[in-house]
């Protein structure tokens, strides 16, 4: 293999890895905050991608300009899901863990079915936008512009999330995460923090959906393959760690690309899960996990 080919594989892995990281960020945030694994994560990503497509089709608005709109829309979704389902699921007395698994799992199946009913099973894509089908060539290595933009937005989003964690709200999030009962004593409204955490987490996912919408097709099942990787990313990086999600996302992207290049492409997931199991054996809390 030529060095340009190797660079191409590594660049491809990096660009995809950053997308994986961005998809996983919201999942990690919500889990870190309240120990709830959102099994409808992929389906919410799918909804964001449909929203991008529908707005683009109706108004011709470029996906990049839709970022704030979709983020707000998805934040609303997140808050609504927390208030309507999660808060109630958490208030049960027995088997709380099981109830929250089933409630988000059921939500996932419902959203998928509803999407198929509303949008049909056809694959759709945003075919025309500022960045569409553009590619940069740097010394024989090709960098697709939509993916590059997605990577930059991903890094900005992570920077934003880390900045938020330094604000008062961020400290309240951290405090609630550490001791959800004690924070009530110092006047933090736990329920409100949880709802805002969901809003923030799902808004981040919305940003990922916008960027994916720039180069990926949309269909009712598009979330599933990304969600699976997002769960691995969160577990690998360490539950609740944003830095962990970023590093693990890139690691998974690279391992996937390298496995596909060196071995058979059909085996690329094996590389990902092999790394995952090794990390679990050596460091069960994940690369950056604190627990």
């Amino acid at each position: 293999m030529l060095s340009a080919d190797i660079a191409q594989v590594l660049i491809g892995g990096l660009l995809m890895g950053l997308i994986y990281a961005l998809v996983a960020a919201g999942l990690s945030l919500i889990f870190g905050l309240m120990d709830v694994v959102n099994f409808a994560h992929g389906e919410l990503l799918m909804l964001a991608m449909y929203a991008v497509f529908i707005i683009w089709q109706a108004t011709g608005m470029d996906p990049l300009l839709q970022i704030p709109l979709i983020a707000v829309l998805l934040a609303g979704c997140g808050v609504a899901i927390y208030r309507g389902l999660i808060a109630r699921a958490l208030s049960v007395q027995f088997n709380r863990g099981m109830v929250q698994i089933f409630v988000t799992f059921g939500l996932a199946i419902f959203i998928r079915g509803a999407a198929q009913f509303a949008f049909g099973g056809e694959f759709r894509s945003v075919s025309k936008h500022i960045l569409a089908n553009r590619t940069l060539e740097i010394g024989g290595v090709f960098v697709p512009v939509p993916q590059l933009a997605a990577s930059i937005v991903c890094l900005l989003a992570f920077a934003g999330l880390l900045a938020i964690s330094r604000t008062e709200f961020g400290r309240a999030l951290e405090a609630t995460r550490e001791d959800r009962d004690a924070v009530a004593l110092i006047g933090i409204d736990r329920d409100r923090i949880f709802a805002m955490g969901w809003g923030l987490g799902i808004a981040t996912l919305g940003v990922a959906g916008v960027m994916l919408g720039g180069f990926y097709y949309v269909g009712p099942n598009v979330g599933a393959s990304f969600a699976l990787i997002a769960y691995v990313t969160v577990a690998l990086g360490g539950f609740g760690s944003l830095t962990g999600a970023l590093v693990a996302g890139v690691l998974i992207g690279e391992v996937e690309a390298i496995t596909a290049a060196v071995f058979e492409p059909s085996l690329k997931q094996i590389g990902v899960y092999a790394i995952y199991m090794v990390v679990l054996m050596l460091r069960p809390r994940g690369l950056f996990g604190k627990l």
Partner: protein
Amino acid sequence: MKRRTLLTAAASALALGNQAAWAADEVVIGFVYPLTGNGAQVGLDAKAAFETMAEIINGNHAPIPMLMGQGGGLPKLGGAKLKLVFADSQNDPQKARAEAERLITQDKVCAIVGSYTSATAATISQVTERYEIPYISADNSSPSLNQRGLKWFFRTGPHDEMFSRAMFDFMKDAATKTGRAAKSVALFYEDSIFGTDSSNVQRKLAQEAGITIAADIRYRANSPSLSTEAQKLKSANADVILPSSYTSDAILIMRAMAEIGYRPKAVLAQAAGFQEQGFLDGAAALANGVMSRTSFALDATKSRPAIVPANALYRAKNNKDFNDNTSRELTALAVLADAINRAGSTKNTALLDALKATDVPGDNTIMPWAGIKFDETGQNIKCNPVIAQVFDGVYKTVWPFNVAAADVIWNVGT
């Protein structure tokens, strides 16, 4: 007392219902397709195609010049109407098996038609074999399906060996016509039964034809990214890429190749995803020039006059034209209905004999085939495939050259 009256009434109503079903004023046929999940659109399109055929058979209309095109139900069963029952396989072989079983035991279907993916056909046809009713494979293309010694398996369309052979015959003819021969191919196939079987045949045919296999890439279906796969194709830079992929992967690989600045010389697809509207929309301009084997030629209206009225009915229902899959599905139901009609009943043995005796000339269908006649394995031996190429987002038939609607664009060797 009151409750008992109600129960009796209900029981007699049920009994009457049963009796009505036995009176053969309705012929119940089962269909197993992915109606939700990743293959859902294909399944929903299939459903529309079957309903179109049922409308042609059951309805009263001007005769359409095709098998069972006269309308008014099945004449030899006193004008009995077809009743179609659809079951959702979700593209999962185990769910397909369970649904086939349910159709047979609960809905009492006399035959099952299916099922898009070959992996689901493999399990459904085991169930139909056990219950001794026919399985009509409308659109499954794995060559291994009819070589399992099944007595109740019938495939009206070509399998991938016939398709692949046609693809290699086409490459040879294109070389003769243009003077530019394809010297190397890249195999690119998904990792289930469809892709694996397809690539096995193509590997064999390439060796026979003395064509180098520059790359042999088995990939994981529905991967989030195919960029490394595209890189491998680019490095191999074969004269012709031969992909066997479903819709989502077909869109993704065309984009992934473009993203790394690779414009393949020729893409000759084993249909499937490449024949879907979702692919033509999703890949947009990148789809232009892509060739695909197909069993259908929408533009062959001169030799197949039934295409126009049948397609109009389908379009009214589904707002699309017939494609490789939906045309085969419509034809499969026509063949089954014709066999039931000739059998004069839905009794399994009579139906089996009638299916075996099927001999329909090609011009009595909407397909560009020589006809429909099954060999002892249940494979239609008269369905010759064609090759189509995308021009401005529309597939046009380019081979065999004598039925071509457009001249093939063959960039190999330029």
